[in-house]
C-alpha cells in the first residue's frame, strides 16, 4: 500500500505544481509576450520568421505595427540554428517563411537550396541600393540573389586620439590609418608606442579581422599565400617582442583596457599557466597585478558592431576615440535574411525582406533603435553620413564604414573559413608560445584541414 500512498502524494504534488504554474502563467502571459499569443491565433496572414539574432524580433514588431501583418518570430540559439533549419527544410517543413544565416553558414544553405530565388521576386531591380559586398555575399555560386543583410560589418581600428596626438602629433583618422597600412608598419608603430610607454593592442588578436586578402580555398585547393604567413609573423612578433598588454580578447582586462590603464600581463598569465591570477575577476585581478607595470592601450581592431561594444565599455575615455582603416579590408559577422524555398507565402515574405533591408524609413528607425548599428542601405548611409558620433571624437562613422565596406572583396569568403581560421589561429598560438615548432604547427594545421574537409586538396 505504500506504493499507492506514494503515488497519491506524487500526483498531488504534480497537481499543485502545475496549478501554481498555471496561475502564474496566465498572469505573466498578460504582461509578457502578448505578441506571441496573437501570432499563434492569427491564421493565414501570419509571417513566420526563424532567426538566430533577436534583432529580427524588433524588425518583426515594427513590421506588424506598420502593416498589420502578424509576424511570429522564433528565436533559436545561434549554435543550433543550422541544425534546426537543415532538419526542418530537409524534412519538408513549410512553416518558416523567413530564414536567416551568417556568412559562414550561407554557402551550405545555398547548396542545399534552402533559400528561395530572390531574383524571381524582383531583387535585380534593387541592385546598387545595398552596399556591394553585402549584395554579393547574398548571392549563391551562380550569382542568383538568395539573401540580403540589413547591416554591414566592415572592420576598422578603434584608436585613442589623445595618445595619437602625443606620440604621432596627429589624431586624423587618415594619418593614423597609415600607421596600420601593412604588417611591417604595424610592427613599427607598435615599437614606437612601446618606446613612448604605451602598448599598441591589448591582445595580439586585434589584427585578425584583416588577416587575409585572399580566399582560403581556390578551385578546391587550400590556398595559404604569403599574406597569411606575414600575418602569422606579425602575431608572433607582437607576442614575442612584448608589444601588447597580453590580455585575451573578450576577457576582463581586455574590456578594462577600453576605459584606461591596465597592467601589462606576462605571457604566463595570458596562457593561464599561472593560476594565481584570475583574469575574470576584477578585484582579485587588480590585487594580483598591483606590482605589474601599467600601460594604456592604443587601439582595438573590431568590425562596425564594435561601435556598440566600445560605447558600453569606454567609460571616462568616451570622446577620446577615433576609428581608422586597417591593413586590408575585412568584415565580421552580419545576419542575412532570405525566404525559405518551401514557404507558401513568398510574396508576403519578400515584402518583409524588402521592409527590413531596402526601406529607408526602416533603416532610419534601426539606426536610432539600435543606437548606432551600421545599416547596409546606401541611401540611408548617405543620409546619415554627416552624423557625428561624440564617443569617437565627433567622427562621421557612417561615411567611414561605407568607404570601408566598398573596399571589401566578397569573393574571398568560403564556407570553410571558420574551421580553417580556427586551425590557423591554433597554429599561430602554438608557435608564438613555443609549444610547437613552426614545422610541427603547420603539419598539424594541414592535417586538421585535410581530415575535416577531405574534398580540399592540400599541397604542403
Amino acid at each position, binding site marked *: 500500500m505504500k506504493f499507492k500512498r506514494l503515488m497519491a502524494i506524487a500526483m498531488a504534488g504534480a497537481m499543485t505544481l502545475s496549478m501554481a504554474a498555471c496561475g502564474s502563467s496566465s498572469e505573466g502571459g498578460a504582461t*509578457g509576450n502578448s505578441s506571441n499569443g496573437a501570432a499563434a491565433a492569427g491564421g493565414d496572414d501570419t509571417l513566420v520568421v526563424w532567426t538566430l539574432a533577436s534583432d529580427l524580433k524588433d524588425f518583426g514588431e515594427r513590421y506588424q505595427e506598420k502593416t498589420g501583418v502578424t509576424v*511570429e518570430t522564433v528565436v533559436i540559439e545561434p549554435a543550433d540554428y543550422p541544425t534546426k533549419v537543415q532538419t526542418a527544410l530537409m524534412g519538408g517543413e513549410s512553416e518558416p517563411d523567413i530564414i536567416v544565416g551568417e556568412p559562414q553558414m550561407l554557402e551550405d544553405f545555398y547548396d542545399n537550396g534552402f533559400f528561395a530565388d530572390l531574383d524571381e521576386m524582383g531583387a535585380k531591380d534593387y541592385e546598387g541600393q545595398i552596399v556591394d559586398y553585402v549584395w554579393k555575399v547574398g548571392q549563391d555560386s551562380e550569382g542568383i540573389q538568395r539573401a540580403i543583410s540589413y547591416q554591414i560589418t566592415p572592420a576598422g581600428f578603434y584608436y585613442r586620439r589623445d595618445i595619437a596626438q602625443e606620440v604621432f602629433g596627429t589624431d586624423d583618422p587618415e594619418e593614423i590609418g597609415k600607421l596600420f597600412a601593412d604588417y611591417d608598419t604595424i610592427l613599427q608603430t607598435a615599437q614606437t608606442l612601446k618606446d613612448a610607454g604605451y602598448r599598441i593592442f591589448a591582445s595580439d588578436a586585434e589584427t585578425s579581422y584583416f588577416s587575409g586578402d585572399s580566399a582560403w580555398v581556390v578551385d578546391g585547393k587550400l590556398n595559404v599565400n604569403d599574406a597569411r604567413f606575414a600575418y602569422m609573423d606579425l602575431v608572433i612578433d607582437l607576442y614575442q617582442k612584448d608589444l601588447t598588454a597580453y590580455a585575451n580578447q573578450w576577457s576582463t582586462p581586455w574590456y578594462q583596457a577600453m576605459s584606461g590603464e591596465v597592467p601589462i600581463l606576462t605571457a604566463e598569465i595570458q596562457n593561464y599557466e599561472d593560476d594565481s591570477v584570475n583574469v575574470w575577476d576584477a578585484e582579485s585581478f587588480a590585487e594580483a597585478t598591483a606590482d605589474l607595470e601599467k600601460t594604456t592601450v592604443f587601439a582595438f581592431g573590431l568590425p562596425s558592431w564594435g561601435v556598440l561594444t566600445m560605447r558600453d565599455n569606454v567609460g571616462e575615455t568616451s570622446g577620446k576615440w577615433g576609428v581608422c582603416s586597417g591593413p586590408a579590408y575585412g568584415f565580421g559577422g552580419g545576419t542575412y535574411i532570405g525566404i525559405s524555398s518551401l514557404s507558401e507565402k513568398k510574396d508576403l515574405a519578400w515584402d518583409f525582406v524588402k521592409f527590413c533591408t531596402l526601406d529607408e524609413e526602416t533603416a532610419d528607425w534601426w539606426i536610432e533603435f539600435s543606437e548606432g548599428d551600421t545599416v547596409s542601405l546606401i541611401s540611408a548611409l548617405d543620409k546619415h553620413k554627416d552624423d557625428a558620433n561624440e564617443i569617437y571624437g565627433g567622427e562621421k562613422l557612417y561615411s567611414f564604414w561605407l568607404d570601408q565596406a566598398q573596399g571589401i572583396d566578397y569573393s574571398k569568403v568560403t564556407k570553410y573559413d571558420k574551421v580553417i581560421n580556427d586551425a590557423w589561429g591554433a597554429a599561430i598560438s602554438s608557435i608564438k608560445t613555443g609549444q610547437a615548432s613552426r614545422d610541427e604547427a603547420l603539419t598539424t594545421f594541414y592535417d586538421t584541414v585535410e581530415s575535416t574537409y577531405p574534398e580540399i586538396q592540400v599541397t604542403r
Partner: protein
Amino acid sequence: MGDKIKKGILYLALIILALACLLPFVLMIVNATRSGAEISQSFTFIPSTHLKENWVRLFDYFNVFKGMWNSLLVSVPATLLGVYFPAMTAYGLAIYKFRGNKLIFGSILVFMMIPGQLSLIGFYQLCTKLHLVNSYIPLTIPAIAAAGTIFFLRQYILSSVPMSLVEAARIDGANELYTFHRIIIPIIAPGMATMGIMAFIGNWNNYLLPMIILNKNDKFTLPVMMATLRASLDIQANQGAIYLAVALSVIPILLVFTIFSRYIISSISAGAVKG
C-alpha cells in the same frame, strides 16, 4: 577514542564532499541575484540586489512558468510511459521462457547502442508526414521504447524476484497482469523509481529533440526557451537572467528527486519473501 577520531575524519570528509556538491548550486542561486556585469567581473557568495531586474528581463523574453508547464507536459507522460512499459517488457523477458526470448533481448541491446541523433532528419520527415510537428506526441510516445530501462529492469527482476513468488501468485489464482501489478511492481519499485528519476531528469533537460520538433514559441519547453537568451546581442547583460532561469528550472527536478529518492530507500529495506 580512536573510533571517535576515525568517525570525525569520516564526517569531515563527507561534509567537504557535500559542500563540494552544494557550492555550484549556491553559486547559481547567488548569481541569479547579480547583474551581468557583476557576474563577468567577479565571483562571490554574497547575493546582490539585481534579482528583480533579472526577473523582469527574463520574463521580458519569455514566460518561464509557461515553459515549465510545457516541460511538465512532456516529461511527466514521457517518464510514466518510459517506466511502466519497459518494466512490463523486462518482466516478460525475465520470467517467461519462450522461443526468441534471447533474440529479442539481443536486439534490444543492439538498439541501445544506436544514438538517436543519427536519425534526426528521418524522424522529422516522419513527423511531418504524420502531422505531428509542433505536438508533444513525438516527444512522449517514443519514450515507451526505452531500451536502457528494459535492460536495467530485466537484470533487476532476475536478481530480486524469486520465481517461487510468481508461482505462488499463480496457484492463488492471480492472472498474469494482476501478478505484475500487485506483486512484481512493489518489489521492483526501487528500480523503477531510479529509472524514473533518471528519465524525468533526462526528459526535463532534453534540448535537441524539442528544439527540432517544436516551431512555436508558445510550445517551447524550458531548455529551448532558455537557449534563446543566448541569441541576443546583450549576452553579457543577460547573464543574470540566464542564471535565474537555470535556478528556476532546477526546482521541479529537486521536487521529483526528494519525493522519489525517499521511496528508493524505504523499499530497499522491505523484504518480499520471508524466511
